């Protein structure tokens, strides 16, 4: 046991840790732990100098294991693994004790936080002593990307991948490309004809030699891992896409990354029956007005409405329908449409009933000011009901600034319906092992640092499937997703985590529990040997199999029963 030589490094993280934990005492305590040969504290272990300290000690003091007491391993474990790798140690001989997020940041009693930190460090050292070197694996990357969803996000991502010189397969469920943007007229804040922009993008994508477009198609299964995904695509009816054999209705694509760009579903205002949508023809949605504007026909049979009301936040910021979030585009969509109507019907009275107006973004606030300057009225109100009033409808509610009841008769009501996660998000999330945030949209790996990555390596998010966005943000997001998706392709090979599950065949009873438990389909029963085996390429190291296997015949390398027991035991000491 004491044959190991562990070096312990306590990070101050500036004052992040040092303010609440006595780092010098902690280092002194660490020196007394069985197996530890040295312990130091240092202001920033992740800095170049901090890492150099580890490298020097590994060579000069012949350390064979390193414990870093600092932040979460999700933050800097890769950093310290690299550091020891450079010093000639196996990168899996590093253990981190999280004394920042799980200690310094959440306690304010310095003495007790220091006491807790000693336990965390003791536990990390107990485990470090039992660490075993693991062999890292390189996986060759297939030079292609599947993009699911051919809206503006999917198009932008596809083009970026194709331009970088890699094959892009664009899988679109419907019979045409463009998604929701196909239904739009002009965009805020420039009032450009959006179809012109879209047509150009679509034709560039369609004409690109690296692009394969699969219309009326959906992905039916995704297997494998970053660098080597096998994607099954099913196509309904004749395929109009180019370069694709129209006679085949399903095909297998093997690619290195997958980009999900499946967009959003508009909120269905029938879920708020008090607004009379579907009941009164003069109550329409912004999407329908958009289509009418694009067609140049307001659907009013020539009798221009004299009074128009826009209702903001329909199905957004509304806990009752389960959508507490802001859909981000509606305020600007309303400002845009109101401005367009103003131009078409100079005499009409146009009022926007809002609860807050949120016009962030370049040129947006200016656009909103100009809309008001042109005579569009904004009234802070909460509209509780829309009822029939002869051949018009009547808005009933309250002016929330004046605290006065509202009862206005109008010719046209436009509901600014928000965005919701696509109806098939649940099945997609199961297929791609994507997590979803409480609002139902796909969850990014980190809200700030990794906005296009997901918890599954090699799968990226583009556009509104991750959350509501306007076109500009969607395209920025999509190009970011494409760049990230290109990283493994450009590298040509990816390093797969070596901390996968392995089976000890002598202990395996062939019960198959692990096979059923694994979310990634990695273990299988070998019919000849009568034991489970693990496909290391599929294994994500989640450990579910090791938990369910009673005999621990299957175990997670780097989290063996002995390591975990030692860790728990030291924690309780």
């Amino acid at each position, binding site marked *: 046991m004491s044959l190991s030589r562990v070096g312990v490094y306590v990070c101050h993280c500036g004052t992040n840790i040092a303010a609440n934990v006595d780092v010098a005492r902690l280092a002194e305590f660490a020196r007394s732990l069985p197996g530890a040969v040295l312990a130091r504290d240092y202001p920033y272990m992740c800095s170049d100098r901090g890492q150099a300290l580890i490298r020097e000690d590994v060579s000069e003091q012949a350390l064979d294991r390193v414990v870093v007491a600092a932040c979460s391993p999700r933050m800097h474990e890769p950093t310290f693994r690299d550091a020891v790798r450079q010093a000639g140690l196996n990168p899996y001989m590093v253990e981190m004790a999280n004394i920042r997020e799980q200690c310094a940041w959440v306690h304010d009693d310095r003495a007790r936080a220091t006491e807790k930190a000693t336990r965390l460090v003791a536990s990390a050292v107990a485990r470090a002593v039992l660490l075993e070197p693991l062999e890292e694996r390189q996986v060759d990357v297939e030079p292609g990307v599947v993009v699911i969803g051919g809206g503006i996000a999917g198009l932008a991502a596809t083009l970026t991948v194709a331009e970088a010189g890699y094959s892009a397969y664009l899988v679109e469920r419907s019979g045409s490309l463009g998604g929701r943007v196909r239904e739009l007229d002009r965009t805020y804040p420039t009032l450009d004809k959006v179809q012109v922009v879209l047509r150009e993008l679509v034709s560039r994508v369609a004409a690109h030699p690296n692009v394969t477009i699969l219309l009326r198609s959906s992905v039916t299964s995704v297997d494998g891992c970053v660098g080597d995904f096998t994607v099954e695509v099913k196509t309904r009816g004749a395929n109009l896409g180019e370069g694709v054999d129209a006679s085949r209705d399903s095909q297998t694509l093997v690619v290195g990354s997958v980009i999900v760009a499946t967009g959003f579903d508009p909120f269905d205002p029938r879920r708020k029956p008090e607004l009379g949508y579907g009941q009164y023809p003069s109550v329409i949605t912004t999407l329908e007005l958009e289509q009418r504007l694009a067609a140049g026909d307001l659907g009013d049979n020539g009798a221009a409405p004299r009074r128009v009301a826009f209702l903001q936040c329909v199905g957004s910021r509304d806990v009752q329908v389960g959508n507490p979030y802001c859909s981000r585009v509606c305020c600007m969509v309303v400002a845009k449409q109101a401005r367009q109507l103003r131009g078409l019907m100079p005499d009409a009275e146009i009022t926007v009933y809002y609860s807050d107006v949120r016009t962030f973004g370049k040129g947006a606030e200016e656009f909103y000011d100009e809309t008001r300057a042109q005579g569009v009225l904004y009234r802070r109100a909460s509209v509780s009901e829309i009822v029939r009033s002869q051949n018009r409808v009547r808005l009933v509610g309250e002016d929330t600034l004046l605290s006065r009841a509202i009862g206005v008769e109008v010719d046209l009501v436009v509901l600014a319906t928000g965005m919701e996660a696509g109806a098939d998000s649940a099945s997609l999330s199961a297929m791609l092992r994507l997590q979803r945030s409480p609002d139902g949209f796909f969850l990014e790996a980190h809200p700030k640092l990794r906005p296009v990555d997901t918890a599954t390596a090699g799968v990226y998010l583009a556009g509104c499937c991750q959350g509501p966005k306007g076109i500009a943000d969607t395209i920025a997001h999509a190009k970011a997703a494409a760049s990230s998706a290109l990283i493994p392709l450009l590298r040509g090979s990816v390093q797969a985590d070596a901390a996968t599950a392995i089976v000890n065949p002598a202990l395996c*009873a062939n*019960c*198959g529990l692990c096979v059923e438990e694994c979310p990634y389909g990695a273990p299988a029963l070998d019919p000849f040997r009568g034991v489970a085996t693990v496909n290391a390429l599929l294994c994500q190291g989640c450990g579910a199999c090791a938990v*369910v296997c009673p*005999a621990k015949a299957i175990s997670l390398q780097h989290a063996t*029963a002995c390591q975990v*027991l030692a860790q728990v035991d030291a924690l309780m000491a």
Partner: protein
Amino acid sequence: MRAVIPVSNGDTLGAVRDFLRALITEEVVDAVLVPMETTDGAVAPALVADPELLEAANPLAPVLGLNAAPVVGHVSLRTPRARIGVVLRSCEMRALVELVKLRQADLADLVTIGVDCLGTYDVPVYNALRDSKGGGALDSDALLASAETGDLAPQEGYAFRDGCQMCEKPHAEGTDITLELFGADLRVGIPVSLPDDVAVRLGLVAAALDSGEEHGRRVKVVERLVRARTQVRDARFAEILARLADRRLGRIFASCVRCHNCMTVCPICCCRTCLFRTPTFEHEPMQYVSWAERKGACRLPADTLLFHLTRLNHMALSCVGCGVCTSSCPVQLPVGSVFRAIGHRLQGTFDYVPGRDTEEPLPMVTFRENEWSEIGEE
């Protein structure tokens, strides 16, 4: 089909033996796995290929040392294999169903033969009883006679196994062939339900039982028995749960000698090598010392409580209540009652009934999105 196996001269056991023999001679099966009696009266399961030897078969002997479900796995799990008739008590059949789910047995080439269980003695008790009657095989006429009314009672001065006393499912269910002892006058005939083609081969004809009151009698006897046994069971559970609340698991198992018998005999514990017999639990000397220093004292052998907790964790959802663990405990701890009491509550949580149906998925590997939403995140 339901038929009656004829009994001549009141020799019920003889009729059962003839029936099993016919299964082999009429080529329904190649061999029969059944409890056999040795010449001096001990009883143990054996795989019998020679029909002549079935003269020593005794599936009615009121003794159970071993739950035979795991050995059924031995003869059924891999191919090539033979067609085998397996004679099982109800707790053994339930265990077999669980083992099928755990891929430790395969029903494909088996003919399961269930026998209503009239209660069993622990092996030493059974032996003592035999000795008191002058040795040799035990005459179980009295017990067989009680099948008709369901007033099952052990020989005076002796007790059935702890597991049997609280067994609320003594009646055979879910087997291919069922010897329906409850409610029947076994001196005259043994009602049996079996597949039509097997009946034809054995020359049995459908009895006018289906409509008749005989079947109704079995149902009534079983109902009454289940009710009575459930009461005993619930009283036992209440007692154990009170002890658990009061003295906790550690105290109940305080005198456990950690012989692992309970795990070895448990039909559900089907690991090749139990985790607790691997080096995972071989600690360094200083480890024991540090535990002793931390807590003041460290019980040895260590990890005894952890063993029981882990075993509960691994198999209590599938505990079929056979009680062979209690029977095998050298220090007479109420292992089975504890495992059943805790298992019963766990099983209820997941609406899971072990042994009911091979198609019923194991809760451990079933993911329900809304499960236990009261704990943790929505």
